């Protein structure tokens, strides 16, 4: 009995040693020479493998970054500037800091302002819905509300607000990877700079219909009236195809457009004080009067 146990242990031990040796030799002989910096860069990455950088995952990003002559075409939106600084340090490159971005859903057509005109009873997917028809409200540009963007977000940063029927972005969790941008069949979601202390202005509407049509479908649609363009003193607003767009790089966050917008389709977030529309309107009035007088002189 004892001898059987001893023999078994002995054989297994010898086998183990021999096979380990074989493995060691094979590993030595067929070793793939790889740039050790790839591993280092990969370790510096967040490891979310979200694909937001445009590569298949963090390792693919690392492999490409190591080979690249500079880091201009490489940016990890999830890790942001900190990660890129670490990657640059490993590779000995310089990297310019990028303004952190965030996903902005450009539709503010909540259930209250955008009444339903029909009931959708098909498969609950925005993409499927978009192939069938324009949607269950009068607006053929707005959010379809089936939550394809929520399903696409790997970071749990998006959720549907049952009250408004629109997706809400959790600022703390959004990494601006862009998965939701690709998921939305109506192309509503845009990556915009987060802004100083998160303060930013945006037109939350992409309705290209003419004013009366847009207004009929949704009370807070952009009707392309152009008041914001006339109001803006920084030339930050473009009006094209009956819809206004605020250029985030030119916007100085004065909130004048927001105060003047007749439908309330311009929204500002994270400002310390709520917008006093009347005060701002008064200020604009005085300024425009002065300008008029100056022009007469």
């Amino acid at each position: 009995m004892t001898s059987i146990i001893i023999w078994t242990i002995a054989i297994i031990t010898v086998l183990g040693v021999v096979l380990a040796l074989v493995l060691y030799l094979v590993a030595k002989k067929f070793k793939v020479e790889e740039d050790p910096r790839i591993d280092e860069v990969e370790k510096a990455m967040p490891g979310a493998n979200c694909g937001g950088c445009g590569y298949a995952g963090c390792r693919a990003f690392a492999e490409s970054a190591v080979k690249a002559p500079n880091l201009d075409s490489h940016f990890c939106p999830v890790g942001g500037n900190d990660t890129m600084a670490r990657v640059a340090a490993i590779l000995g490159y310089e990297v310019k800091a990028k303004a952190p971005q965030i996903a902005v859903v450009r539709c503010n057509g909540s259930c209250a302002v955008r009444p339903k005109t029909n009931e959708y009873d098909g498969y609950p997917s925005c993409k499927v819905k978009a192939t069938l028809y324009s949607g269950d409200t009068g607006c053929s540009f707005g959010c379809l509300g089936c939550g394809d963007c929520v399903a696409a977000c790997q970071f749990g940063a998006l959720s549907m607000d049952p009250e408004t029927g629109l997706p809400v972005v959790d600022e703390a969790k959004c990494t601006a990877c862009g998965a939701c941008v690709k998921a939305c069949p109506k192309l509503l979601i845009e990556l915009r700079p987060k802004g100083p202390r998160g303060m930013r202005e945006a037109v939350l509407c992409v309705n290209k219909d003419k004013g009366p049509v847009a207004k009929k479908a949704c009370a807070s649609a952009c009707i392309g009236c152009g008041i914001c363009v006339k109001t803006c003193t920084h030339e930050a607003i473009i009006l094209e195809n009956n819809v206004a767009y605020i250029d985030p790089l030119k916007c100085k966050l004065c909130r004048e457009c927001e105060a003047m917008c007749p439908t309330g389709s311009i929204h500002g977030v994270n400002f310390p004080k709520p917008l006093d529309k009347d005060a701002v309107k008064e200020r604009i009035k005085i300024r425009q009067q002065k300008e008029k007088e100056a022009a007469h002189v």
Partner: protein
Amino acid sequence: MSKHTFSIGGVHPHDNKISRDCPIRPLPLPPTVYLAMSQHIGAPAKPVVAVGDKVNVGQVVAEPGGFVSAFIHSSVSGTVKSIGPRKDLAGNPVTCVEIAVEGDEWDESIDRSEDLVTAIPSDNKAIIEKIRLGGVVGLGGATFPTHVKLMPPPGSKCERVIINGCECEPYLTSDFRTLLEKGEQVVVGAAILRQVMGNVPCTIAIEENKPEAIVHIREVIAKLGYEGIEVMSMKMRYPQGGEKQLIDAVMGRQVGSGALPISVGAVVQNVATALAVYDAVQKNKPIIDNSVTVTGGCLPEQANLLVRVGTPLQMILDAVGGVPESAAKIISGGPMMGKAVVNLEAATVKGTGALLLLTEAETRRGSASACIRCGKCADACPMGLEPFLLNRLCKAGDLEALEANAIQDCIECGCCLYSCPANIPLLDNIRLGKGAVLGAIRARAVAAKAAAEAAKQ
């Protein structure tokens, strides 16, 4: 019992032809018509009228915007009120010409008499030109410009013209009524098509649930003394009216993946198209009206209406007493392939063949459960595809595998969805994947063209 049918797949839904005894009656002229510039497959037509112009019935309102495109004629007489985007029945904007109706003045070139003209012009080129100028498109649903179909690419030869009178979709009866009431005209139209394609034999395929039509058309052919045109009684099976299925059923030939029917020597035209061909060639009458079945169990009366193109849908429904309380869904077309209507202010187009009103109980969709691998969808698919597999690949977004599994051959007939015991939205997903694959194929073709040009230089 007729045995003629296609060889793979298909389903047999209840035919529900409750409007079959309703003769086609003309709908009174609407106060305004809206003529969409995209009433056909291909490039949208370009308007040639301006706001304020007076137009007569049959006058050209828009010219073809490309080779695969069609003329659009005014369906009424009156004044052009506006040209601009208007929402179609699915709520998507399309460019429309709005015409306020004044009287009913017809273009002088149109022969409005009821006399049957049997003498067919001998010049085939002139016939095709007349069909083109008449704005004739396939009225079976796809609205493919007919003159393009009648000019097969060099090297291909037509061996048989098939006139599609299957009307395999449940509920629809407008083709059946057309066969009964305008049988002579349809047969002359068939004779014209057959002559254009080189005096080839012609088969008028009618499903056996329309025995009156089969008998009537046989009588008409005998009366007119046409040779080379026969009526084939088909076994009832959906989607028999699908082009490739009908060719299989009539000729026993299968059209290959991605190939056109002409590759097996067939040209298929719908009954309503044959009538439109007759009107365009013999009467100089372009497509200005079409018959629309208005049906549904919840409607107090059924109807087949002769409707001017561009009539608002609301007006058609008002003619049968308005939308009843119990109607939950309005569908343009049949229940299998039709599209849900969300905008009753939208107007009809040339291809509008039916308005179907269904109740909540009739349209309710069961909640989806897991696939049990029963294979019913694969049995039902008339294109020999595997819908359960395509569904899975579509969800995974594997375009290469989808293309390898021939998703681009899907005709979106809905047999898979109809047969699935687990209520899985197979077609919804497949349609998405098909769109993506077709997009990828097109992108590849464009890239190949660009590469070839770059190589030349």
